[in-house]
């Protein structure tokens, strides 16, 4: 059941990103699949987050029509970075730390894709670095807000339980 939810959520993240990007231009710079992997790394299991990253990445590659593996590689790495950083740094009520972690993960994801493109196909888009930076900022900002909301929701749920 857990793995079905994992696969389903990954699939939905991609679908959502595609629909949103079609209707709102800035959503093209929001990496929902990365945030999903981050969510899994922060609130569930860091190890499972790796699989979420891989799966969402492969689905994204399929959706983009790229060779499968570019985004899978990058998102797996990003999920690992988020999980490890979240464990090591004090992120409780520290929005800038969170922002930095998300932005770093997004940048690592983009950089790995960029390098893989260059290494395997000897070509890469000239706008890729700038767009990646913008994506990192937007994704990190949305991530900080979204996870703050999640934290608030979880706190309320905890209070209710007590």
């Amino acid at each position: 059941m857990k793995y079905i939810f994992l696969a389903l959520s990954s699939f939905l993240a991609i679908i959502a990103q595609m629909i949103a990007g079609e209707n709102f231009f800035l959503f093209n710079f929001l990496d929902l699949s990365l945030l999903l992997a981050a969510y899994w790394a922060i609130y569930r299991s860091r190890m499972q987050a790796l699989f979420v990253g891989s799966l969402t990445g492969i689905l994204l590659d399929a959706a983009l029509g790229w060779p499968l593996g570019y985004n899978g590689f990058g998102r797996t790495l990003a999920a690992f970075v988020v999980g490890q950083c979240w464990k090591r740094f004090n992120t409780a009520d520290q929005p800038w730390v969170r922002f930095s972690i998300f932005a770093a993960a997004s940048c690592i994801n983009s950089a790995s894709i960029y390098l893989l493109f260059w290494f395997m196909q000897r070509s890469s888009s000239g706008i890729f670095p700038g767009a990646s930076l913008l994506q990192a900022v937007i994704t990190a900002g949305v991530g900080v807000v979204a996870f703050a909301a999640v934290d608030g929701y979880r706190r309320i749920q905890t209070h209710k339980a007590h």
Partner: protein
Amino acid sequence: MPSRVNGQRSAAVLIPLLVLHLALLSLQIERPSGTLLFKSWTMAAQAPVLSLFARITGGVGDFWRGYFWLVGARAENEALREAVNRLSLLNGAYEQSRLENARLRRLLALSDSMQKHTLGARVTARAPSFLANLVYIDRGERHGVRVDAPVISGEGIVGRVLLVSAGQAQVQLITNPGAAIGVMLENSRTPGVLAGTGDPLLELKYIGNTDPVAVGELVLSSGLDGILPKGMTIGRVVEVEKGKGVFQAIRVKPLVDLIHLEEVAVLLDPQTPETAGPLP
């Protein structure tokens, strides 16, 4: 502690997943040459391992062959050594044949230029005493060889037939102390007598002190002795001294290498039935 263990497990999962993605990519992306990246990577990964194993197995094999697998190597070595010796001898024989061929061609050319009947002969023996200056040839009376028949080689006159039997003849070399040939100097055409002394050098007699003689001048047969035809080369003047008496002391070096004589030609009378026969 559980967190650390969880982190290690994450890392343990991360690496295979990343490799899996790379493998997935490499199975889809082709190099410009058309080879899948996966194949070229696999080959690149195999290369050092294969090279290492090849070195190891090659080294072990060499060691085995070099030190342990020597059964029969000694016998093979002996056989090869014998083969080399046999081939060396064969090669030497071929080289001798080539040289002999060259000498015979010179002889043949000389015979043609003289337009005389000649008989090829092989030197079979030399007189026991080196000072005797006599050699034996394998042609005799039944081949048409007569006493006093001139014997020549490609370079010039060798001597004359001194004795003849049915199948061989004794040749008196021009260096023999008893040999004397009517000669003339090439430039001045001054006649003289070239006599053997037993030494490698000949003595040119009866050339007057006033006659011009140059070192290096050729000495030719004059034909006046009634044995040798006129104009054949014999030797070259190497020493000239004004004599105490009327004549100069002149030393002549034969053109023919009489020490290493192997094939000669005997000049025959025109009436002799067998002419220009091949060497045996």
